[in-house]
C-alpha cells in the first residue's frame, strides 16, 4: 500500500464524492487507479470485492478500508469524511427543499417523474444482476426466495438473511 497522508486521502475522496453522480464506483476507480495510481486494477478489484461482502455502502466501506491501509485510523476517518462531506450538504439542501416545496403542484409532478425514473433504474439494476452468469439454477432459487420474502411477504431482513445466508453458503460449498 502506498504511503499517503490523511490530507491527501481527504482530498481524493472529497473529489470522488463530488463527482459521483449516478453511481460512485466508476469515479472511485478513475481517481484511485487512473489519476492517482494508488492502486493497480487488480488491487482495486480485490478491495472492492471485500467491501461488497460487507454490509453498508460499498464506497463508504472502500474509503474506510483504503484509508486504514494507507494511514491508519486517522486515514480511515479522513477518507470517509472527505467522501460524505459535500453529498451530505447536498442531501440536507434537498431535504429542506422537499419538505418546504414538495407539496406544490409543479414540484409534485416533477417528483413523480423523478421517482418513476428512480424505480426504473433500480429495476434495471436488479434485472442486469439477475442475468449474470453467477446465477446458475440452484443459486437463482435463493434470489427468488429473497425477492419473495422481502418484497412480497415483507419479512424483516434479519430473519431473511438468517435463513438464506447459511443455506446459500452450504449450497455454494457443495458445488
Amino acid at each position, binding site marked *: 500500500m502506498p504511503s499517503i497522508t490523511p490530507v491527501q486521502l481527504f482530498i481524493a475522496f472529497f473529489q470522488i464524492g463530488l463527482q459521483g453522480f449516478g453511481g460512485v464506483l466508476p469515479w472511485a476507480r478513475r481517481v484511485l487507479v487512473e489519476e492517482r495510481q494508488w492502486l493497480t486494477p487488480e488491487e482495486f478489484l480485490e478491495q472492492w470485492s471485500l467491501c461488497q461482502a460487507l454490509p453498508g455502502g460499498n464506497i463508504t466501506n472502500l474509503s474506510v478500508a483504503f484509508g486504514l491501509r494507507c494511514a491508519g485510523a486517522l486515514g480511515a476517518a479522513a477518507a470517509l469524511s472527505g467522501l460524505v462531506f459535500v453529498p451530505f450538504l*447536498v*442531501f440536507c439542501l434537498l431535504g429542506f427543499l422537499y419538505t418546504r416545496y414538495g407539496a406544490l403542484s409543479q414540484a409534485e409532478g416533477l417528483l413523480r417523474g423523478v421517482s*418513476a*425514473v428512480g424505480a426504473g*433504474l433500480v429495476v434495471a439494476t436488479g434485472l442486469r444482476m439477475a442475468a449474470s452468469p453467477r446465477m446458475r439454477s440452484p443459486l437463482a432459487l435463493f434470489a427468488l426466495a429473497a425477492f419473495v420474502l422481502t418484497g412480497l411477504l415483507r419479512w424483516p431482513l434479519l430473519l431473511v438473511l438468517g435463513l438464506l445466508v447459511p443455506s446459500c*453458503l452450504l449450497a455454494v460449498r457443495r458445488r
Partner: protein
Amino acid sequence: MMTQTAWQFLIEFAQVSLLAFGGASAALPEMHRRVVEEHGWVNDEQFSELFGLAQAAPGPNVLVASLIGWKVAQFAGAVAGLIGMVGPSSLLAYAVTRLWDRQGAARWREWLLAALVPITIGLTLSSGYLLTRGAGRSTGGYLLIAVTAAATLWTRIHPLWSIAIGAALGYAGWI
C-alpha cells in the same frame, strides 16, 4: 439538539446499516419496512420520491438515510441518518480490514461473496418492486418506469439524463 424522533431514527438506521449487505438498493426493503410500515414516518409515495431524489444527487446512495431523516426530523434527522447508516458499517469495515490483512483469508472471502451475490440480487429486485409500487401511480408512471428500465438495460444512456427527462415529463404533467 437531537429530538426523540431523531434518536429513534438513528437507532433504526444503525440496525439497517449492519444488515445492508449489497448496499443501499439491497437494504431498501428493510428501510421501507421500518420507516413506512412500522413508524409511518413517510408514506409509500414519499419514500419513492425521496429515493428518486437521492439517485439524482451526487455521492453514495446510502445517504438516502439523511434525506429521509431530514423529512422526518429536519437537520437532526439528517445527521441521525448519516451517523446511523454509515457509522456501524464503517466500524465493521474497519475491524474486518484489520483482521483480513492479518490472516489473508482469500478463499473464505470468495466463498462468502459467492453466497451473498444471489441474495443481493433478490433484494435488489425486491427494491425495484417496492419503488415501482410507490412511484407508478398512473399509466404514465408505469410507462416511464418500464421505458427507463429498458433504456438502462439496452442503451448506454447516463442515469442523469434519464432523471432529467423524467423530471421534465413530470413537470409537464404527463406522469
